[in-house]
């Protein structure tokens, strides 16, 4: 090396680490983040099944009976169970992040986060109950 290292504007001697493609594997919070984002795949699988169900309904009783048999396949039940897990994960993370995205202020003071998140869970229960009630025939 020569005596006086001359730095250019581009400072070629700075060390610039490259971010690994698997950056999300190394830290639990990052992994949780990726799982949260990938829960959207379960959302898609649900919508696809719902569309198939609708199309079976549309084609008549015969087609619908076939659909009912199809979803009893262990693979599809397993898929639904796994999707359920991810969608619930999505719901919980979504509800818990609401207070930071939409803080509620009462008389200029910010409400504590759990007070903002809690109503979500109540609404969740009520809506789920309502859907189940309608589907199961009141």
């Amino acid at each position, binding site marked *: 090396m020569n005596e006086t290292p001359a730095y250019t504007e581009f400072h070629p001697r700075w060390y610039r680490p490259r*971010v690994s493609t698997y950056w999300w594997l190394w830290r639990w919070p990052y992994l949780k*983040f990726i799982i949260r984002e990938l829960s959207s795949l379960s959302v898609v699988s649900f919508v696809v099944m719902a569309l198939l169900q609708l199309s079976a309904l549309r084609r008549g009783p015969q087609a619908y009976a076939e659909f009912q048999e199809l979803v009893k396949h262990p693979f599809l039940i397993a898929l639904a169970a796994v999707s359920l897990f991810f969608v619930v994960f999505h719901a919980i993370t979504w509800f818990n992040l609401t207070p*930071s995205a939409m803080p509620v202020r009462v008389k200029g003071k910010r409400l504590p986060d759990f007070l903002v998140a809690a109503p979500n869970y109540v609404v969740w229960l009520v809506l789920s109950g309502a859907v189940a009630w309608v589907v199961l025939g009141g």
Partner: protein
Amino acid sequence: MADTIALEVTRYCPERDAEPSFQTFEAPLRKDWVVLDALNYIKDKVDGSLSFRWSCRMGICGSCGMMVNGEPKLTCATFLSNYAPGPIRVQPLQYFPVVRDLVIEMTDFLNKLKAVKPWIVRREEKPLSAGEYLQTPEQMDAYKQYSMCINCMLCYAACPVYGLEKHFKGPAVLALAQRYNKDSRDQGAGERTDLLSQEDGIWDCTFVGECTKVCPKNVDPAGAIQQYKLTATIEWFQSLLMPWGAK
């Protein structure tokens, strides 16, 4: 409790090394010592060539941020005893270029900060004789949290999007833009919106949320960004429905 603790410290000498390596030092493990004390001990007693930044050693200047065991931390507020028996890994803040040892390069951050006009913008200044700009406690509360930022850049080292997307303005800059947007004395929100509502402003953020967790001052940059997304979206729809009403 053992009386010393090992620190694996990043060494990088730009004139000599192609890439950083670790050097292990032993430092006294004292109950009241923080990681910064151990680094200063090493510099004073063992190897004077170790380079790192610090100043206030009380969590105010924001210059002593480093990765401690992979987490961005203010080293003046991170006790050695929490990591006993060690070893403790001390690295420069990640996602920034490294100048030497534990010293990172922050020009990018400073340029981005300046770009969002982190000061009170007035269309017209009141004459001095008109007195000060008054503010109620509620109005101050709207931005106070964001004004606590000490520019330590821990949130940048926690943000994978900043690491991947070098144009991204990043957590603290966006939170500081909000700090002025929410200030009742400020009138610069419109100018800032043009900048922030571009892709490399708020929209690159995917709400990983780690910036908020590592922030030593409870600034909550993640919350600030999501709230700003909501504001920007409402404004977008307004300008769509009422193009003539635009600012």
